[in-house]
């Protein structure tokens, strides 16, 4: 199942679904999220479970629904000024996430048994954070190959 928008494309494996979203810029008169003047960047959510519609950029709302075999991958783009800076010096999408990279303390919101990891990188001159969450840390070895395959099937080009 292919998904393509805002210079990002992915080919999801069976059982996975995704969203490539770009928030409306907040104007002060609307109820859009964010701060006035902010220029929203694309956010990608990929998961091997049914994604709820009410989700935060880093998966809040979705992580609450995760089961033991579930994994959520977020690709969050930062502004162009971040591309290539020290934090984002890694080049290309990470495709080899390992169990040792995950920790409960890396979660944006700590939930029992869950674990997360963050990898910052630059691709096609765009700065991203790859944030992955495991429904159960002990299941990392089983579910990470799926997540890595999904990341490997994701391409980032110019916006």
């Amino acid at each position, binding site marked *: 199942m292919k*998904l393509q928008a805002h210079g990002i494309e992915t080919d999801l494996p*069976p*059982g996975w*679904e995704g*969203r490539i979203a770009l928030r409306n810029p907040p104007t002060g008169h609307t109820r859009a999220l964010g701060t006035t003047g902010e220029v929203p960047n694309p956010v990608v959510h990929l998961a091997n479970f*049914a994604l709820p*519609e*009410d989700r935060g950029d880093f998966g809040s709302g979705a992580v609450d629904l995760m089961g033991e075999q579930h994994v959520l991958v977020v690709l969050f783009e930062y502004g162009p000024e971040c591309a290539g800076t020290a934090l984002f010096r890694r080049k290309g999408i990470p495709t080899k996430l390992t169990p040792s990279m995950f920790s409960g303390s890396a979660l944006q919101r700590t939930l029992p048994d869950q674990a997360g990891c963050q990898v910052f990188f630059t691709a096609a001159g765009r700065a991203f954070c790859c944030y992955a969450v495991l429904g159960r840390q002990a299941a990392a070895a089983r579910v990470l190959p799926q997540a890595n395959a999904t990341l490997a099937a994701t391409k980032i080009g110019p916006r």
Partner: protein
Amino acid sequence: MTVLVVVEGVVIAVLALLVVGLLRSHAEILKRLHDLGAGIEGEPGRSSTISEAHRPGSPGYPLMPQMPSPPDREEFGGAADVVGLSPGGQEQVSVRITGVEHDTIVAFLSSGCITCQKFWDAFRKPRKLGLPSGARLVVVTKGPDEESASAVAGLAPPGIPTVMSSEAYADYDIPGSPYFVYVHGPSGRVRGEGTGPDWDQVSSLLSQATGDADLAATLASHVVPKPDADAEREARVDRELFDAGILPGDPSLLTPPPEHPGHAHG
């Protein structure tokens, strides 16, 4: 006297005109009803001119004009995952429907149809929908080239995935809106499809479809196994037939044994 006769004549002429007008109007109404298929039941030459009345598998009478006719096929259509745009058009959405643990009810709606409005309203209160346990509701409209994205954005129920995808209409062979398809997630097969004037009727239809399938599954799990002796006898017969060169489907197995005269079957 002459004046009276003239006046009477004029009145009669006016009344005659009114009667002719009424008869004509009546004939026009009958003609319209005939076109809609409301002919007299069983009367030759009075069958409906609406195509669904003649389709195999159709109920034989026209459905409500505001409801889409069932597709011209004998089996359920296929199921497919849905890829499209969010109503705001800012989000590319993919919703997995096949090969997942949960079942999905795919609601095909339009922003323009009057009947759909009842469903848009009903979906704003998802807790009152009484969805089957574990089932996920997904709303699909046609793509932005055939639908007003802003109108759909205004109607899209919060918290329920809403995808604009003309491809999904083609994948599911949807005859029109509103239309509903119930997909069994693990197998990816359609368990029921249809439409109705409101959610209560559609919900009842889907419950019936899923109830039938559940009942079949329950019955299958309660099938009493054959006694060992019967199974062994059946295996022995199969083995002896095989040794004699009689394989499954052999014509001799399908020929009834000759009847012996004097042996009447009781």
